[in-house]
């Protein structure tokens, strides 16, 4: 009736508007378009700085490929945050870093000390991660803890447990040291000769995880239910969605992914460190940052796998470039500046988007 009468002229007028308007709208409403553009800008600026000789090392394909090694844990934990933030009601997981620490020790013992073999060790570690996630999920979904609080509590608890069960010592037996090969850069078969070597973790961990999460979210009914309860918890319950079980599953998956990241971290560091995920600023805050930058709405129900992956690429390549652009201590300091500006800038843009175009994707 009336609504279509109001809408149709709008659709028509949109068709009439020029390419510029549509491009701007796409950049603002499609987070991945914006991230893609930013990544291209970063690459272009760095490459031109490079050819102008303003960088202290060459910003080339080899370097970009080598930098991808830090993309693996970052993007995977970003995906873990995607799952829980999507589930709504303030979903967030502050404990992922602590789970990485704890599960790293589990992997260190099972693979490096008890010698259970790679396959069993991976299963055990992933199960430990899922169990940690289940604790979070139970507190959030069944008891009704706000996620920020539940995961803050388990962050403290898991972090402490990792130190206690490891006796504060990293596990670095021969097996663990040799496990580094799992993180090494490899040549891509067939087409690899002309391309730089890519860190193995991209293929063994990141791509499978990303594919799995994508399929879960976009091709399974679980994904539908997750989006539903993230968008409107009450409506989901009335539509027959078991909100508690599904919300809990999101946290279990987040824990599971964190468990896998623990294996990546062990491989990358050639040792199982009880503070692997919490030292420095920890792994949780960067992961949340990646998720937000990747366009995941903190209120739930909106978010895409591609956004996480692109945001990771942007941050990792930008950071790598900054290290070459600023010598000395400034390098790492300017990384903080860049991240802060990106995060606030992207959020302000989101806001503009909502005002101008309504919904955001």
């Amino acid at each position: 009736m009336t609504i279509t009468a109001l809408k149709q002229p709008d659709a028509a007028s949109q068709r009439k508007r020029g390419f510029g308007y549509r491009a701007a709208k796409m950049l603002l409403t499609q987070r991945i378009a914006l991230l893609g553009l930013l990544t291209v800008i970063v690459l272009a600026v760095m490459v031109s700085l490079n050819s102008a000789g303003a960088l202290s090392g060459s910003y080339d394909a080899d370097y970009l490929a080598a930098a991808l090694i830090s993309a693996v844990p970052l993007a995977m934990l970003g995906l873990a945050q995607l799952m829980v933030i999507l589930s709504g009601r303030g979903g967030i997981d502050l404990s992922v870093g602590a789970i990485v620490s704890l599960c790293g020790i589990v992997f260190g013992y099972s693979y490096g000390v008890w010698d259970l073999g790679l396959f069993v060790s991976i299963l055990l570690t992933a199960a430990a991660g899922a169990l940690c996630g289940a604790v979070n999920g139970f507190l959030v979904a069944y008891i009704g803890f706000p996620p920020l609080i539940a995961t803050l509590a388990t962050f403290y608890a898991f972090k402490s447990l990792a130190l206690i069960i490891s006796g504060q010592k990293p596990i670095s037996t021969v097996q663990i040291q040799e496990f580094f090969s799992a993180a090494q850069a490899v040549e891509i078969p067939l087409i690899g000769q002309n391309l730089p070597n890519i860190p193995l973790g991209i293929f063994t961990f990141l791509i499978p995880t990303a594919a799995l999460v994508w399929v879960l979210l976009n091709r399974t009914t679980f994904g539908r239910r997750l989006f539903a309860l993230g968008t409107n918890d009450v409506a989901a319950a009335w539509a027959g969605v078991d909100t508690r079980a599904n919300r809990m599953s999101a946290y279990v998956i987040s824990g599971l992914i964190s468990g896998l990241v623990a294996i990546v971290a062990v491989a990358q560091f050639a040792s199982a460190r009880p503070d692997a995920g919490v030292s420095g600023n920890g792994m949780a805050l960067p992961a949340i940052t990646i998720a937000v930058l990747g366009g995941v709405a903190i209120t739930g129900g909106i978010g895409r796998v591609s956004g996480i992956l692109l945001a990771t690429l942007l941050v990792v390549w930008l950071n790598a470039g900054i290290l070459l652009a600023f010598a000395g201590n400034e390098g790492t300091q300017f990384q903080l500046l860049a991240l802060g500006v990106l995060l606030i800038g992207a959020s302000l843009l989101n806001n503009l988007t909502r005002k101008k175009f309504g919904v955001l994707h």
Partner: protein
Amino acid sequence: MSEHPTTPRIAMRGISKNYGGVRAIRQADLTVQPGTVHALVGENGAGKSTLIKILAGAEQPDTGTIEFDGKPVTITSTTDAIRLGVQTVYQEPQLFPDLSITENIFVGREIKRGVRVDWAAQAAQIQELLDMIGLPHKLATAPVGDLSIAQQQQVSIAKAVAGDASILILDEPSAILTDAEISVLFSIVRRLTARGVAVIYISHRLDELFEIADTVTVMRDGQTLDTYDIQDLTVTKIAELMVGGILTEQREPRSFHNVAPTLELHNIDLGQLLNGINLQVRPGEILGLYGLLGSGVAEIAETVYGMKQPTGGRMLYQGKPMVNKGPAAARRRGITLVPANRSAQGVFSFQSIGFNISIGDLAKLSPLKGWVNKRRERDIVLDLIKRLGVKTPNENQPISAMSGGNAQKVVIARQLLSTPKLLVLAEPTQGVDVGAKEEIHRLIGQLAASGTAVLVVTTDLAEVLRISDRVLVVREGSIAAEFGPDATQVDILAAASGAVTTRKAS
């Protein structure tokens, strides 16, 4: 009455407002005289709420002027509006769940001594206000979050009345109130108009306008059509103005199959809320459940659907005992429900229409359990959109961009993914315009005709009489009376409000 002798309290001229691409209102005019009740009517999405939000300072217009008592004013915030004496009861209660009723009523204009809130002075005033709206005194300190929706609406009204209003705006206040509560509201409104307050009254219950309104402005497609004296109008006339055509009353005769009941409730209890509920509904039958808010009528629907677990009694479904652990279990059995509160319980706002429909039965989306086949989803969704006449360019539109009536159809479509054996509809047409209401009623009739047992839970008297084969009246957690289709509104209302205590055989 258009040539009123006095200066209008408010004169809005040439008001337009766009939301992104949506033109919510276009060149609307509204002139309201002091001491009158001015009704604003129009289909869902006609722009009524938007127009009054502009007056209340909650939204800023793109174009237009506003005059207050003959002087031009600019209203850029709710503070500006409140300063002019504009008090508003919004369509959705705007309250603070953790604060007490007293604090809710005084929030924003506390009685103060210095910076400190004068609790004692507020306490003295609150009693008077609670008396006026008919809420018990003991609720003064209760957190608003503990109240029922209807009580919250009453608090909103008290809040607006407590302010020194020169204009009182009521946006569909009656939609969730019972008739008793509405009559309290009307007496308040009359008292205020007697003091010279101008009241703007928005409602879809056209019949009540004849009780309270002096003038009526009709809106359509974001425009104000014209303003009429209430004496010059009838319900049919208003409805015709609203939809811009002639409404034909059509009652399709329903054929009633006398077969084994789909659902039987035997002495169902639910804590203090329900006691000893007995009812039966058969395939093809439409059973109306009428009750005032708080009567327990809503709880019957929730119990059947598995949202609440009965504390006593038996439920039989297709002749077999049934325990519904939750809505999912009910749906697996073929019981679906359209919830009463569309925005809170029904709609996944920024998701697409397709998403909003298919969430009802994800198992249908692929032969493989747990899997989503996008093409199959599209086919199913498009089919339902067509069957229900949802007005949308495609199934990917977010449901938040739709009018109330269309959104309601989407929520109904969700229940029809597989033809339900038992369909429960709670307030199926609340806040839905006349045209859409018509279509929804026809749809319910069609479903019944195809063999679905239908349970309609409503507080809309006209509706329950119009579509039901039988009407059960619920009062204080029990079935108070049963009526056949020949009952009158008076019979039912009397039963619901306690005048009739004996059960009348049908």
